[in-house]
């Protein structure tokens, strides 16, 4: 292991333009083998564009990538892998029914002369690889039988089997428990010692101190700078990530009446969140902040009865219930705009008209007879009132832009007359104008006494729209913050610590 060749990765004025926007602005950076470099930036800062460019998923508009001093170009991820740059993505990509060995060598299993697969060689190669990485796992076991952490290790072993010069890891710990993350870090440090360049993308500040040697921050597609991990305190990082223009917009004044509309007590789902209790007031916009994997989405779905939970009651409108189905919670006036709007919020092949009426179809006895005309009236009312851009309410909702689809999801629920709206990442993937409109709708509802709970990764948006923000950390409530008398820096600090 001594004198392992040190690899190097360099980008020169790397630029990626999409029609109308510049996703990455002339980024030049250099990483040496042996160090672990953390890559930081808020959503849309250009991290994923950089990863995609380096991983061969997209081609740069201009600029160059150099590996070990040689310029490389690739038109596909497969080509990037051949030239030594391997990416481990956030989502696990193992095929659960295949063995560990087969997953590692998928598509390039060793063959015998007759063209048949040489299973013995495949297994012994996989064993040798895992041993080198210090992993004791059965290579003949189906990958699906392993835990998430072990699967993550197999992903890394698979990446290492390509003998890469550069290994990129995209939030590899988001699904891992603390102890499992420790094992991953030990493995990464061992890889760094072999001279591999490690780029580590994360949202968690504490991880930087545990693993990284240096931190590179991107903002609005441009490189802000690189600092040693030792100097990366929250204030410095927030300054770099968000810039000076922070917290321009103030949140609206808190709602005048303090009447509780929803009380949550001891909400627990062991693998995602535990013992969550809070009170939501009439007209209040309550934010839930936390890093990816903190249990925000899971909590929201639990409150709506969409996913099972183990313990915890919700009191709403004088009734105390154990949420167990969306139809039960709808009856109590709870509504959910889910995180994955396209797949879970709407039925893409059906029309805007049907989608707006969707939450009103059950129970069918609500109105035995529904006619296209009545549905059209309802849909047209919301399309006008919420400024939804549609050609015709009868054409498929899939024709609409992301922002308009989000408005259809909200319209669908307003049509049921809710008193609590749960919004999961309501502004993800929608343009600035649509974002404004969604915020205006939430404020409008608040002034009419309808409360909202907003989950968002965009902390500055929470600061702008919420009356109060709860902070969720590893599934537990870690504090509460009033945007009126706090700064974004406070919030980011608490979330990332």
């Amino acid at each position: 292991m001594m004198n392992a060749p040190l690899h190097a990765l360099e980008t020169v004025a790397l630029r990626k333009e999409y029609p109308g926007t510049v996703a990455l602005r002339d980024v030049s950076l250099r990483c040496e083998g042996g160090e672990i470099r953390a890559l930081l930036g808020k959503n849309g800062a250009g991290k994923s564009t950089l990863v995609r460019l380096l991983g061969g998923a997209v081609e740069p508009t201009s600029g160059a990538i150099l590996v070990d001093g040689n310029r490389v170009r690739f038109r596909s991820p497969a080509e990037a892998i051949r030239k030594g740059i391997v990416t481990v993505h956030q989502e696990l990509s193992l095929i659960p029914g295949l063995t560990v060995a087969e997953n590692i060598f998928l598509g390039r299993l060793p063959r015998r002369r007759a063209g048949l697969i040489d299973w013995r060689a495949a297994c012994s190669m996989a064993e040798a690889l895992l041993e080198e990485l210090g992993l004791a796992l059965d290579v003949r076991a189906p990958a699906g039988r392993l835990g998430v952490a072990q699967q993550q290790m197999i992903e890394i072993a698979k990446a290492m089997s390509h003998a890469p010069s550069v290994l990129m890891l995209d939030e590899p710990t988001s699904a891992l428990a603390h102890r499992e993350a420790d094992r991953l870090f030990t493995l990464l440090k061992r890889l760094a010692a072999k001279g591999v360049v490690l780029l580590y993308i994360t949202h968690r500040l504490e991880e930087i101190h545990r693993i990284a040697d240096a931190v590179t921050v991107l903002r609005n597609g441009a490189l802000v700078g690189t600092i040693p991990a030792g100097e990366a305190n929250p204030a410095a990082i927030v300054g770099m990530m968000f810039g000076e223009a922070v917290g321009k917009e103030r949140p609206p004044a808190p709602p005048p009446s303090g009447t509780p509309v929803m009380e949550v007590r001891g909400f627990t789902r062991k693998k995602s969140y535990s013992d969550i209790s809070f009170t939501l007031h009439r007209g209040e916009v309550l934010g839930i902040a936390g890093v990816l994997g903190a249990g925000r989405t899971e909590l929201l779905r639990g409150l709506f009865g969409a996913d099972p939970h183990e313990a915890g009651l919700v009191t709403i409108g004088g009734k105390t219930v154990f949420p167990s189905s969306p139809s039960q919670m709808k009856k109590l006036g709870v509504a959910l705009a889910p995180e994955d709007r396209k797949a879970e919020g709407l039925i893409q092949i059906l029309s805007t008209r049907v989608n707006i009426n969707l939450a009103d179809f059950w129970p069918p006895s609500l109105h035995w007879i529904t006619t296209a005309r009545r549905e059209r009236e309802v849909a047209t009312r919301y399309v006008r009132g919420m400024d939804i851009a549609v050609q015709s309410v009868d054409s498929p909702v899939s024709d609409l832009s992301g922002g308009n689809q989000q408005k259809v999801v909200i319209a669908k629920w307003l049509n049921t007359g809710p008193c609590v709206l749960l919004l999961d990442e309501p502004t993800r993937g929608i343009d600035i104008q649509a974002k404004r409109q969604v915020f205006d709708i939430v404020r409008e509802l608040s002034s009419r006494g309808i409360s909202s709970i907003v989950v968002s990764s965009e902390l500055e948006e929470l600061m702008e729209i919420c009356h109060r923000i709860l902070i969720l950390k590893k599934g537990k409530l870690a504090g509460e913050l009033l945007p009126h008398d706090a700064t974004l820096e406070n919030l980011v600090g608490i979330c990332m610590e």
Partner: protein
Amino acid sequence: MTRLRPLLGSAVLEIVLVALCLFLAAVAPNFLTAENLLNVLRNVSMQGLIALGMTLVIIAGEIDLSVGSMVAFSGCLTAWLTGALGTPGAGLPVPLAVGAAILLSLAAGCLSGSLAGLLRNRFGVPSFISTLALLTALSGAAELITNGFPLTPFPGWYNFIGGGYLLGIPFPALLFVIAFAGTHMLMNYTAFGRAVYAVGGNAEAARLSAINIRTVRTAVLALTATLAAASGVMQSSEIMSGTATTAKGWELDVIAAVIIGGTSLAGGVGRVWGTMVGVVFLGVIMNGMTLLNVNEYWQHVVRGGLILLAVLINRMERRGR
């Protein structure tokens, strides 16, 4: 032409059907008579009744392969129950025994469909598998009931249900048309019908929109199995016996009619009217070929080709949009 296009595009099958009828009217002198047309309607009514339910099942993203066996089973069950309840000494007068036998057979159908729904909801067994199992089991049960021989306990008037006429119209055809109107209303004018489309279009989004997807799935499966049982009663009335070997392979004819009618096997898309057209289309073709004395083996080949053609037209029509 451009203005005609959307109209033509959405009615390709109807146009082909009309063209086919005109052609047959020209070459087969007996085709365009009231008697023959009513005969066509009667011939398709028993499979058609099931196809209406199957349309709902397929729109909801499920499938029912057990309908053919259900027809045989329910016919045999009705015959056996009639015999058992109506034997002198058992106490029931024959008309009452027949009525009770019919109701119990329909209930058995409902139960069988509900079972498939339960397996789907509670244990995640795809309806393809559970109804495949039911196909075999019900067929075996029908053989067990009859012991391999047709049961013939029915009184003469029983023949009315499957073979009689009311106001000059075959009784099964009348039931079929009424059931068509019912399912058409259900799918187009009720919240439940809309929920069926929603569940087939995207079950998770439907669930998160507070639609009880389990109830929807069980309801459509139970309805279809009940319609199959009703069809079985009519069938037993037409042939005046409970015969275990009847209606073999009907499930495929029924599914073919639904698919020809433009319903997508992927779920979420389809119309009851389309199924009606598909059912009549298949009936007219069979009738026409019989009138033209086409060899029976050729009839099957031609029908297979036409099913393929109809589905291709549907595909192209959808891609054109």
